[in-house]
């Protein structure tokens, strides 16, 4: 079908593409699920739609009622996805955004008519979470859907991303994704563990203390409630750190497979390569990774064109992956 009543019908059902050209081992197939194909440009479209629909079911939000305000901390993609849906529904969205995210994110939020509240860049995503919690306490009349604790976040992945992966890749042996709110890992992880016993769930995290937009280290002092609520420590089979330089290198290498993806997707691919390297030569394995978004929002960082050491140095000052 190529005709749709609403752009929201285009959320999900993203394609999975074979990127085994980048696999370090011939016996390991690697596939990437291209979440940049979602209409607002990232995997977070699924989460944002699920958060809004749950709030409407609970009548926290009512379409058509005037002067309804939402506040949400986001380093970018959730804010952008919420902003698109809020624009359609007529809600006013305030996004608490670390001041040092890439300028494209800021522009996109403004394009969807969201209001930006800056949080200190030095405090990263955790600072945005704290500020949003404080503002929400001061303004109980604002809807605070709080993606880090809302079960509608992993539920979106349990009901859509997970089933799509298993339908398209029934031979999956490993699922590798980044750790942000942990929604993708918890939702897809639970679905796969229930429906394909033996699948391994691998988390990729940035080094502690690094500013990594969209990904977060659990060691940075904030563990998302949905991680603990879903027994994340038991759900995960492995958790590996990927360093900024590896992330940029693999973001660039993804172009060898024809993929122009965001930097967290490069980080996750680097994690998938680490995973592939653990598979014995006489075993077949099929790794599915999530490419959370496309590269467009990161062009200003010079990630593909500038000297890699320069890009990595910049990564320490600006949140861009």
């Amino acid at each position, binding site marked *: 079908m190529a005709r749709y009543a609403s752009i929201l019908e285009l959320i999900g059902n993203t394609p999975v593409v074979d990127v085994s050209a980048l696999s370090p081992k011939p016996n390991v197939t690697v596939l990437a699920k291209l979440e940049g194909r979602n209409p607002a440009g990232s995997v977070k479209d699924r989460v944002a739609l699920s958060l809004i629909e749950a709030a409407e079911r609970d009548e926290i939000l009512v379409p058509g009622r005037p002067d309804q305000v939402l506040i949400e901390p986001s380093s970018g993609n959730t804010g952008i996805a919420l902003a698109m849906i809020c624009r359609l529904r007529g809600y006013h969205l305030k996004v608490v955004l670390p001041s040092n995210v890439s300028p494209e994110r800021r522009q996109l939020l403004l394009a969807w008519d969201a209001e930006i509240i800056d949080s200190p860049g030095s405090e990263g995503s*955790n600072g945005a979470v704290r500020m949003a919690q404080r503002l929400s306490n001061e303004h109980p009349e604002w809807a605070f859907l709080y993606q880090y604790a809302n079960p509608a976040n992993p539920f979106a992945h349990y009901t859509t991303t997970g089933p799509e992966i298993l339908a398209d890749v029934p031979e999956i042996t490993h699922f590798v994704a980044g750790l942000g709110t942990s929604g993708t890992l918890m939702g897809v992880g639970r679905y796969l563990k229930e429906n394909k016993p033996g699948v391994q769930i691998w988390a990729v995290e940035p080094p*502690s203390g690094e500013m990594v937009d969209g990904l977060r280290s*659990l*060691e*940075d*002092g*904030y*563990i998302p*409630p949905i991680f*603990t609520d879903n027994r994340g*420590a038991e759900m*995960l*089979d*492995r*958790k*590996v*750190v*990927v*360093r900024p330089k590896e992330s940029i290198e693999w973001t660039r290498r993804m172009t060898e497979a024809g993929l122009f993806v965001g930097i967290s997707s490069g980080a996750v691919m680097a994690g998938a390569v*680490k995973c592939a390297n653990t598979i014995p030569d006489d075993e077949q394995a099929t790794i599915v990774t999530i490419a959370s978004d496309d590269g467009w929002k990161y062009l200003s960082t010079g990630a593909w064109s500038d000297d890699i050491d320069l890009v990595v140095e910049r990564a320490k000052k600006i949140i861009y992956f």
Partner: protein
Amino acid sequence: MSAVVRIPTVLRPAMAGATTVTVEGVTIGEVLRALTTSYPSVKGQLLNDDGTLHRFLNVYVNDDDVRYLGGVDAAVAGDDEITLLPAVAGGAR
């Protein structure tokens, strides 16, 4: 077998300011016990009384979280780099 352990900033004062320490051990448990033998005051931050990993300590062998590799039983090879990262306890929930 000796392994290189990278010491995080918060533990350095208790470890004579060292940024890396080379210790003997073939498991993470042996490596951590060797550290506490040399620097007894850090014991409470590394291991529980029953010898398991302290809840707020995260240990990586070559960037792989040992909690998913068998914890204190995780194997250590000669050229492995071990990183200790204490979690900030206050934000755990």
